């Protein structure tokens, strides 16, 4: 059996440290963004986020709205009465609209 070459040890330790530091350093924490629904508009209308960020929709109007992904196949909020909030974790870029007022449109862009 071959003996370990002495120069391999520091390299191995170095790689081990690199691995551990990568694993234990704090990950970039997901942000929480707010989309305000007011005066029949989503503000901001286009929101750029990172994968895994949270988006909180807040209805500041007196009428009920919702947030519906445009293809109709991905996600949809429940009815959001005046003052209600709803959170979504951004996984991919999506266009959305309000199913009560289909002229209200917005977009989430995942970088």
């Amino acid at each position, binding site marked *: 059996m071959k003996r370990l070459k002495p120069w391999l040890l520091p390299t191995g330790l170095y790689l081990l440290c690199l691995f551990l530091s990568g694993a234990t350093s704090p990950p970039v924490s997901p942000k929480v963004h707010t989309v305000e629904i007011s*005066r*029949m*508009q989503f503000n901001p209308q286009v929101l750029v986020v990172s994968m895994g960020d949270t988006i909180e929709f807040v209805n500041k*109007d*007196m*009428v*009920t709205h919702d947030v519906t992904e445009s293809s109709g196949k991905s996600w949809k909020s429940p009815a959001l009465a*005046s003052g209600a909030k709803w959170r979504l974790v951004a996984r991919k870029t999506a266009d959305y609209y309000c*199913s*009560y*007022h*289909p*002229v*209200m449109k917005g977009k989430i862009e995942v970088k």
Partner: protein
Amino acid sequence: MKIRKSISASAIGLLFGSFMLLSPAVAQDNPTLSDAEVAHTAVTANQIDIDYAKIAQERSKDAEVLKFAETMASDHKAVIDQAVALVTKLGVTPEVNAVSKQLLSDAEKTKEMLRTKTGAAFNKAYIDNEVAYHKAVIAAVEGLLIPESENAELKSLLESIVPALQAHLEHAQMVQKDLNGK
């Protein structure tokens, strides 16, 4: 009674889309509607659209028309609830007046007309009326009710409903376009 008469003429004028041309009395800055009358007119205008929505829910089978009617019923009720909460807080009792009376009598004729129609003809008549009615109400809120409001909270409530009326108008025009393609 001269003032009353001119308000009534304005109400008719605005419903035919020539509000600004036919209403020199309203363009003047002396108020012709009290806040109690503004409140009554606003509640009446919203209630009328709820009534139209109920007729649509009884007579239409078109999913898009029904969804639109549901939004009208729900949104205009939310506006009425806010208006009632405000006048209650202000201690104002909404007062019937020439403009709200005119709105009601015009609405009676429209409801009668809608009840004679079925199927595609009903859908078209309902949506065409929604387009015209929202245009007239936007003109009345911006050109009459907001300038006539003295109380700041009443004025601000009326200002806050304009974007919803505008969205309803665009939504009605969208449904109108879809119906024309069917």
